[in-house]
């Protein structure tokens, strides 16, 4: 039948498919992907917030979370909620290893360092206990903008403020996550091409030497 015509059509179709496939690729690259699960945790006072995510943006719902201390003893376990979060009161203020087991072979962990708890004692002193100091110096000092605060109170205020302000930033950081970068992708392809070259070279040498021994 229309043999050549059909081939031409099919050829054009294949080119079309490749163009579509190649144009989809960068779009896919932008989103951070792949079958990997990540867990991320930060400290707020004495509470630890853990967030889970499959790279690709979806969260791990109802996934098992286990918390271990430095010696590897399991302190507690629980499941993430429908937003992929797991919030718990830290039983100990030392390095905590948070392990997320998302099933079907997906697992990852995150370590909360003991230092991250440093503000804990102070931020437990609530903002209310800080406030009474404020009107007092305001009355005494002649300059209206000047507040006299003790070192500890100042520290507490800074800690609480930072906790509050940093939370969305940390959250956003986790959202962004490190997806594979273009450099990684091209690096990998280059690596494979290098291996091909190496393989071809070894085969070439072998062929040369076998032909050489034949000739002798």
């Amino acid at each position, binding site marked *: 039948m229309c043999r050549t015509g059909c081939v031409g059509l*099919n050829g054009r179709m*294949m080119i079309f498919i490749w163009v579509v496939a190649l144009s989809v690729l960068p779009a896919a*690259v932008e989103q951070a*992907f*792949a079958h*990997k699960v990540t867990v991320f945790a930060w400290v707020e006072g004495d509470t630890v917030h853990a967030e889970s995510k499959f790279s690709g943006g979806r969260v791990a719902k109802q996934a098992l979370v286990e918390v271990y201390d430095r010696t590897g003893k399991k302190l507690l376990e629980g499941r993430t909620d429908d937003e992929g979060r797991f919030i718990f009161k830290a039983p100990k203020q030392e390095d905590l290893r948070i392990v997320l087991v998302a099933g*079907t072979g997906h697992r990852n962990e995150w370590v909360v360092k003991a230092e991250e708890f440093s503000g804990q004692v102070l931020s437990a002193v609530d903002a209310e206990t800080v406030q009474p100091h404020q009107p007092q110096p305001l009355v005494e000092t002649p300059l209206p903008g000047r507040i006299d605060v003790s070192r500890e109170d100042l520290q507490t205020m800074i800690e609480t403020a930072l906790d509050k302000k940093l939370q969305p930033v940390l959250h956003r950081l986790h959202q962004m996550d490190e997806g594979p970068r273009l450099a990684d992708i091209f690096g990998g*392809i280059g690596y494979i091409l290098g291996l091909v070259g190496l*393989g071809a070279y070894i*085969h070439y040498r072998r062929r040369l030497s076998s032909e050489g021994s034949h000739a002798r």
Partner: protein
Amino acid sequence: MHISEGVLSGPVLLAGGVLTVAGTAIGLKKLDFERIARAGILSSAFFVASLIHVPVGPSSVHLILNGIVGLILGWGAFPAILVALFLQGMLFQFGGLTTLGVNTLIMALPAVLCYYCFGPLVQRDSRIALPAAFACGFMGIFLGAVVAGAALMYTEENFLEVTLLIVSAHIPVMIVEGLMTAFCVAFFRKVQPDMLPHFNPPKTDSSFNGRT
């Protein structure tokens, strides 16, 4: 279908590693001069394919391409997939070094099986060849899910449950890959039939088919 580090028990990791080494050795033996470039191209394709995502239910799955890789490379799929997975592990943090053996087995063993099951069919009449190619892409992933389920069976969960879970999560990918494999096979049949296995060159054509 990349199993993360720290999930599997030692013996499973070891068994996966040993089988992968054996498969890779066979694959390297069978990779002759002409096939090295092919293996490299397919290895790169496999490496990049995992970046193309299909969102499904609670998570998302990516293209795997092990069916077509197996169909074209046969045992050569082992080294090709091993290299690609190693680089994915290093550069994208998918899978990991300790699970490299098991993960390679999960994707390369079905590739080789597909080569034996569907390889002989793709040179036949297109009414047989195209469905066979679809099945090749489809089964590559299905069998991968079965191997993954078997690997996970010894550690946490029960085999049937996990396998069903993985299979059901990958159904869209299976279909996409089946279609892609069918397209590729249709293309190769027209343009370069010697890319496909069991190709018998026409007698008049003294094609460049290796030395000897």
